[in-house]
């Protein structure tokens, strides 16, 4: 057996089984991101709530998910919770694990964005008669968005690769499918090279998209800086 077989490498590069794994990685990332954003937004609001109980719960949530290894979270959801009578399919457990974890990180990013909007903006909006909900929607979030986008983009980049941890509960994403083929075919280097290329392709593509988003929404950021100056 030779050290590196180009034919094998090129075969796997276009292998439908591998491409299916790439597709799974993409949709896992998208769904976990959307769920994480929605959940993260509410956790960020809870952390800023006037109610101590809500703040405490949000704090505990973030503490728990940021303080335990990511690898352990889907395992607990998939193998430990059924012992309490809560049963999830592999796909459900993988999504729940990723989304819950992502929410913990995103909530801190969103909170930082909200807190970067000067207090005076909220006061001015309130003085015009806007409700708290209207202030959040029309005044605070659009300005917070500019602050949120760069770290959010980094988080998405991380998430693309993080989806691979769900391979431990045999979620059939890119890494898992690579490992399955390795066990059958023993072409370790070629297969890992293919997986690495697809991960690089995805993160590079995302970087490109992120830069476009930043350019689109960041153009009047100088005006935000001006208000913050004082």
């Amino acid at each position, binding site marked *: 057996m030779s050290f590196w077989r180009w034919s094998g490498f090129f075969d796997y590069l276009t292998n439908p089984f591998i491409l299916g794994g790439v597709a799974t990685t993409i949709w896992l990332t998208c769904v976990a991101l959307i769920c994480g954003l929605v959940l993260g937004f509410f956790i960020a609001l809870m952390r800023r709530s006037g109610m101590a109980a809500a703040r405490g719960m949000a704090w505990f949530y973030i503490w728990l998910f940021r303080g335990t290894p990511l690898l352990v979270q889907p395992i607990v959801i998939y193998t430990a919770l059924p012992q309490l009578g809560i049963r999830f399919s592999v796909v459900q457990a993988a999504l729940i694990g990723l989304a819950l974890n992502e929410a913990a990180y995103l909530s801190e990013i969103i909170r930082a964005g909200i807190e970067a909007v000067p207090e005076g903006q909220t006061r*001015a909006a309130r*003085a015009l*008669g806007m409700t708290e909900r209207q202030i959040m929607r029309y005044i605070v979030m659009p300005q917070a968005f500019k602050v949120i986008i760069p770290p959010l983009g980094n988080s998405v980049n991380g998430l693309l690769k993080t989806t691979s941890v769900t391979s431990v509960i045999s979620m059939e994403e890119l890494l898992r499918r690579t490992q399955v083929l390795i066990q059958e075919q023993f072409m370790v280097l070629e297969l890992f090279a293919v997986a690495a290329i697809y991960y690089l392709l995805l993160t590079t593509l995302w970087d490109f998209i992120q830069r476009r988003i930043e350019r689109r929404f960041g153009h009047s950021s100088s005006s935000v800086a001006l208000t913050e100056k004082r």
Partner: protein
Amino acid sequence: MMIEITGVTKYYGQFEVLKNCTTHVDKGEVVVVCGPSGSGKSTLIKCVNALEPFQKGSIRVDGIEVSDPATDLPDLRSRVGMVFQNFELFPHLSIEANIMLAQRIVLGRTEDAARRQTIELLDRVGLADHATKFPAQLSGGQQQRVAIARALAMNPLAMLFDEPTSALDPEMISEVLDVMTGLAREGMTMMIVTHEMGFARSVATRMIFIDRGEIVEDRPTEDFFSHQQNPRTAAFLGKILHH
């Protein structure tokens, strides 16, 4: 009576910022509030539209008690215009959108009605050509005039100003004061915190002097400037007028 402040006392923790303050602003009156830094001027004016809560006393705006938990605060605030020291235009919105937003989402005006009102007010503050610009593209004086137009767009019963010219370069102060003088001439009810004593003298119907949270002096403008009852007022005026 448009604004009626009775025995208002407010604490920040242990610190008593406002001590048993009583005063009023009648319909069409222009009341100027002055006093040393940290005396509680901003706090008093923020209590009027419930941007700050207070612990004792009562404030009524057009007969409605501000501290009553049953009061619809957004509704009450939409009928009282407020202008801040730092303008507080919304930087992500164009000048036009700054003025239109609350008309649309708070008053529920149609796009057309809101735009008509906006154009009219921009014209009035002399900024008709700047409707599509963003706040960061305007000078401080222009931004403050937009902020005044934004407040006026709600057709308020009264206007509150908290040091509207203190953040401005000297050459821009008069363009803002001119707009405010125009409003006063038209009979707008106003409560104004300012150190511009020349302006105060020409437009105010009454002058209030606050020191350490207390209303020390509350008298008709001419009286106030010709003889002060309290030595603290005299000392303050002496300092501010000879600058």
